[in-house]
């Protein structure tokens, strides 16, 4: 009796200690968040104060307050939403086109050694061509209208998905292949039940990188010449020396880029629940 009572209270203590630990970890997270915000917030404060004291040239560096005002004005007039939706539409179309073809090509080349020898060397050569170098050519071929922009974005979105899908398929554990052979998987089952799930982590990484590159391609495409979109907004404001609008545009690019990235990451987390990989703990 006494023994079991002692054990029980020890257990209770342990539970309490565990609660305490989770609470303290939570507060550490809060402290970390606050710490990480300290520098940018401080910088913003200094920036705002210096601007208000007239130490900064407002055409080069408008104060944060001014930028927020501009943001509100652009939102109210509906301009921001219009340009953002045009840009998003372009990025989406370009991503779907380039990423879709990249995924298909990656699957094809991944499954066929002959296809690899046939097209991979040429694709690898094209991969190194920078956006800025091919943009003039695209404009010459397709004019200033939508197609040249979307194709430029598609060109960027193609490669990350192509390379990572290819890599994912080729890195399927050959030991699992042996298992599938012993269990007499059909060819179709080999693909759908082994190769595709095994290469999913790589494919999703490809999706993330492709979306990132699609945004980059978008900026280049819209800056090269267009009459709508966030890139146009930035370029036009720069021409008219309205620096606060340039800032708003840059911030929009950053925020939307981050948001889409987080979205894919969330998808990754759901689809790759089974994965047992290093989470970055234990090594300081």
């Amino acid at each position: 009796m006494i023994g079991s009572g002692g054990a029980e209270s020890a257990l209770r203590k342990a539970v309490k200690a565990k609660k305490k630990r989770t609470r303290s970890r939570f507060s550490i997270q809060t402290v970390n968040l606050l710490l990480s915000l300290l520098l940018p917030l401080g910088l913003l404060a200094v920036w705002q104060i210096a601007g208000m004291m007239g130490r900064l040239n407002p055409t080069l560096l408008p104060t944060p307050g001014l930028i927020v005002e501009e943001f509100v004005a652009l939102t109210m007039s509906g301009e921001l939403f219009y340009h953002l939706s045009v840009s998003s539409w372009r990025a989406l179309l370009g991503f779907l086109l380039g990423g879709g073809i990249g995924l298909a090509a990656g699957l094809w080349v991944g499954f066929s050694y002959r296809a690899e020898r046939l097209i991979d060397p040429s694709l690898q050569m094209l991969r190194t061509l920078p956006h800025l170098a091919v943009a003039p050519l695209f404009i010459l071929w397709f004019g200033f209208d939508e197609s040249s922009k979307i194709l430029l974005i598609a060109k960027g979105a193609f490669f990350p998905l192509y390379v990572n899908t290819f890599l994912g398929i080729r890195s399927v554990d050959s030991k699992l292949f042996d298992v599938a052979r012993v269990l007499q998987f059909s060819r179709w089952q080999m693909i759908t039940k082994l190769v595709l799930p095994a290469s999913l982590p790589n494919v999703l990484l490809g999706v993330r990188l492709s979306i990132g590159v699609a945004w980059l391609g978008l900026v280049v495409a819209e800056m090269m010449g267009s009459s709508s979109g966030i890139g146009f907004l930035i370029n036009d404001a720069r021409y008219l020396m309205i620096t606060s609008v340039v800032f708003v545009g840059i911030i929009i690019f950053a925020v939307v880029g981050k948001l889409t990235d987080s979205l894919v990451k969330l998808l990754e987390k759901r689809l790759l629940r089974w994965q047992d990989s290093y989470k970055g703990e234990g090594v300081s």
Partner: protein
Amino acid sequence: MAAEMLVVHELNKTFATPSGDVIALNRIGLQVKQGEFITIIGPSGCGKSTLLKIVAGLDTKYEGTVLVNGKPIDGPSIEKGFIFQEPRLFPWLTVEKNIAANLSLRKPEVRKRVDELIALVRLQGFERSYPRELSGGMAQRVAIARALLRSPDILLLDEPFGALDAFTRSHMQEVLLDIWQSNKTTMLFVTHDLDEAVFLGERVVIMNPRPGHIRSILPIDLPYPRKRAGHAFQELRHKVLNEFEKVEGPAVDEGAHI
């Protein structure tokens, strides 16, 4: 007399490596009858896994003759079940889906058999767990259930119980003997453990390394179920052990029981 299920004759296997050729198997000869229980024992690197993979049809680059049911092997088939040395589960599938693999759990007969096997390998409550949540021994039991679901005619087992604790191990040995006796499955069972080899096998094949060859084949004329503590068992165990002492160095896991 039952028919020869497996005939291995003058089997040689050489691996070409950058540092030269490695002779993994040298003139292996073995005949196994339908429904026989063969255990293969030998030190690490003597070619046990290599032999099993050739019989399974996973490795077709060899010299010599290997016949299953009188026919040369042309690749893996469902009649030849294989339990690998490691669990080799699909990490993206839960325990029950790993066991079913390419069979659909929506089919009532598959569902029923999978549930029975999960109970048999004592993994109730883990049906929906992913392999990363299992211990090594639990994962290996999933792999065993996966092979048993296909009710193969010949079961090739590569140190299947190596990762299990003593209790689970002896439970799984009983399970295997049950299946063998009720299904008349031909068993080719590789082990490191002298005790296990003598406990399970009707014949023990003793292999030696460099190059991998069969040193001798000892019949174990003991009725099942066998008693490890019995005098006859211990005598046979010593006989197998003696075969090893003729070669230098620590050959096999002697086990903790003497």
